[in-house]
């Protein structure tokens, strides 16, 4: 854990649960791509930068999930560096209570106000504002989260954020967290067509050929949609759908999963409702979901 791996002339990543990318702009100045889980991740990054004699100029956040912005606050204090994020991700990074609030659908209860879901706030600027490394290309990758982006560094390394889960984690967790299923599928198409010297997904191995993993992730979306349709053969309420899904997929329920998978299932239901594959209706004042056809 926390080894520095070079993947291009100017590109590196730090091996950890949510990979931290490094773009070396000059001999000494570097930018991070995401900042890890928490303050401890930030400290480990600092140690690595010190060993290399590098100075942190800024952080580019792919999206605002706590495991990607967790080191922001610490590193911003240490280096007085700029942090860049796009669109809604900027708001969530500045107001981290928005992440568990959104996932839960209301002000989060105690068990959800945990560092896994809620990072410390940091000050953020839009991509392209002063101090942003213009030679880094911002790639829109919506789907997993609202305005998620990836980055292409000048040596042809593409950092893919959370577009792709690893085969092992798809095997274990079955369902990947997503916000907008339609956008997610379009993003997968886009990534499948993308050219790069090497791709670095945050939660899967770096690879020169990413296509097999894209296909696996796409198949999973349709499998999960089918599971939900199967559960909804008879009209069922949301909490029951979630319960059945956990049983079918043999997942272990906890508060974090309740909101991460729960929110994902609500998003699947919206997607399938808008496509006419599932309907939501009220019976005796309770919302029930039922597969169509």
């Amino acid at each position, binding site marked *: 854990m926390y080894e520095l791996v070079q993947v291009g002339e100017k590109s590196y990543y730090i091996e950890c649960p949510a990979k931290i990318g490094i773009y070396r702009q000059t001999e000494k100045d570097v930018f991070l791509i995401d900042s890890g889980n928490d303050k401890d991740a930030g400290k480990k990054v600092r140690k690595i930068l010190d060993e290399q004699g590098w100075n942190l100029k800024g952080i580019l956040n792919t999206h605002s999930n706590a495991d990607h912005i967790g080191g922001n606050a610490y590193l911003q204090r240490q280096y007085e560096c700029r942090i860049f994020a796009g*669109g*809604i991700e900027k*708001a*969530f990074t*500045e*107001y981290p*209570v*928005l992440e568990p*609030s*959104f*996932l*839960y*659908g*209301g*002000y*989060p*209860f*105690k*068990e959800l106000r945990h560092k896994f879901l809620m990072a410390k706030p940091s000050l953020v600027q839009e991509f392209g504002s002063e101090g942003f490394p213009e030679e880094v290309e911002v790639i829109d990758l919506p789907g997993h989260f*609202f305005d998620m982006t990836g980055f292409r560094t000048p040596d042809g390394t593409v950092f893919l954020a959370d577009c792709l889960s690893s085969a092992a984690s798809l095997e274990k967790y079955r369902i990947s967290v997503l*916000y*907008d*299923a339609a956008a997610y599928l379009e993003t997968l198409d886009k990534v499948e067509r993308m050219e790069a010297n090497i791709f670095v997904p945050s939660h899967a191995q770096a690879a020169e050929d990413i296509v097999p993993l894209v296909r696996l992730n796409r198949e999973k979306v349709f499998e999960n949609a089918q599971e939900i349709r199967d559960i909804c053969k008879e009209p069922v*309420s*949301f*909490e*029951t759908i*979630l*319960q059945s899904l*956990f*049983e079918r997929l043999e997942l272990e*329920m*906890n*508060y974090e999963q*309740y*909101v991460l998978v*729960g*929110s*994902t*299932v*609500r*998003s699947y*239901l*919206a*997607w399938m*409702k*808008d496509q006419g594959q599932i309907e*939501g209706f*009220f019976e*005796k*004042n*309770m*919302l029930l979901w039922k597969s169509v056809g």
Partner: protein
Amino acid sequence: MFELTKAGERTYYINHSTIIGVYKLTDKEVCLIDTGRSRKDGERLQALFEEQGWELKFILNTHTHIDHLGGNEYLMKTWGCPAYATNIDNAFANYENLEAAYMYGGFPNNTLSNIFRHPGPVGFRDIEDFQLPEGLEYIRLPGHSFGMIGIKTSDNVWFIGDSVLNSKALEKYQFGYLVDVAGYLETLELLKELEGNLFLPSHGDIVSDIKPLAEKNRNNIEDNIAGIFKDCGTGVNFDDLLKKVFDRYGIRGDMPQYALSGSTLRCYLSYMEEQGLVIPYFEDNLLKWKQAQDA
């Protein structure tokens, strides 16, 4: 045509379904406090300005719910003027679907995203970066939205947004939308301390003494809590709890209410857990809420 009511030397309001405040910065220049619920309201305000020979300098939004933002975009474009709200509320104004996504707790389906669509990034600015002109000040009144504010004019007139339900709503629809029960209750206490000649809640009940209404609202929240507490009993899941809320308050369950009341209920449950009243737990992969033993 909108009719102006004078509330002080420089303060006026329009008693619309969402009250709109007008404050005269000079003889000719005015600012607005909220802008009604639709573009049409923006056009009506424009007609009023033309009739009065007034120039709009800026808009202050008490919060960024759509029934307060209605005329913003039209008037901002017409006058090339800025509109302000708190920075966290601007997150909800700037992103068309964030409010709907937040309330639903996931990607909003078409019904929800159409009903709760926000203006998007039309140039809202953070009130934190704005030096309000002499005669105007604001205080934070969180609870109903994450960053709601109340605005006081030099006539000691307070525009207090949706910090209280009016008496009619308290009788008819007690389960008012909120995002943070603790914040909402603190705001009610804060209202009782405010000095002013006139208080204007956005949806009516204009009063010179806000204390009784604030107190009634506190009692209402406590009644809601007592109701949910009873509902939780020895363990109930969220869908059943929401049905009980719908039934008790005579709310007809539909998609918008599922999001509005559903989100509000989730906020109550978070607060009640914090207060040691209820406990969440899992039973066969189902989240349930039960009364705490010692509550």
